[in-house]
């Protein structure tokens, strides 16, 4: 009964390094989302996917790329990390009824 699983939970990067955040869901949901959460800013949508092989930009897509090669996985990549990307990242999937299921988050620090 895993739901939505995010890895890693914590990561520290140096400016310019790259990394990939992995999100996996076992509920067979079509829709998946990546958000970032910053103090006073709430949740901001980075990218989302409406099905396997599809991706689309959200509110704050710059500096991020995503891929949805398999229905259950949604990957978020940072090609060249910047301090402004220090944040908590949440992945979510959405049921046909509209309810969102969130992972427990990834705390990323870029030094």
């Amino acid at each position, binding site marked *: 009964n895993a739901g939505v699983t995010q890895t890693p939970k914590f990561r520290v990067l140096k400016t310019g390094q790259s990394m990939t955040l992995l999100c996996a869901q076992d509920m067979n949901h079509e829709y998946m989302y990546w958000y970032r959460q910053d103090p006073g800013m*709430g*949740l901001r949508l980075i990218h*989302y996917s409406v099905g396997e092989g599809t991706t689309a930009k959200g509110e704050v897509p710059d500096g991020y790329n995503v891929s949805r090669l398999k229905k259950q996985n949604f990957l978020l990549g940072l090609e060249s990390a910047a301090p402004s990307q220090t944040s908590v990242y949440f992945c979510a999937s959405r049921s046909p009824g509209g309810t969102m299921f969130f992972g427990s988050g990834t705390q990323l620090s870029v030094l």
Partner: protein
Amino acid sequence: AQSVAQPEDQVNVAEGNPLTVKCTYSVSGNPYLFWYVQYPNRGLQFLLKYITGDNLVKGSYGFEAEFNKSQTSFHLKKPSALVSDSALYFCAVRAQNRDDKIIFGKGTRLHILP
């Protein structure tokens, strides 16, 4: 464009008193509205949703919310607050004719005082 406003950054309520967390929205067409709660170091958890029908929606942990179309509001309420209700609450909206994007408010921190 879709938007959600939660006008209060923080709400303080004494335990046992009723609580209200405010939310207003803007969408084209009919809205789907949601409330989520976030406890420290956790992801968001679903509380309740309005899709259609009765304007008063009941959800988890004794929470309810009232949809008011004329005021474009969807305030979260609970008759008697518990200390354990202290958390960060998010309102979210999706337009009925937009099946993809869900937009969240900035969140309201609820403090229940013992």
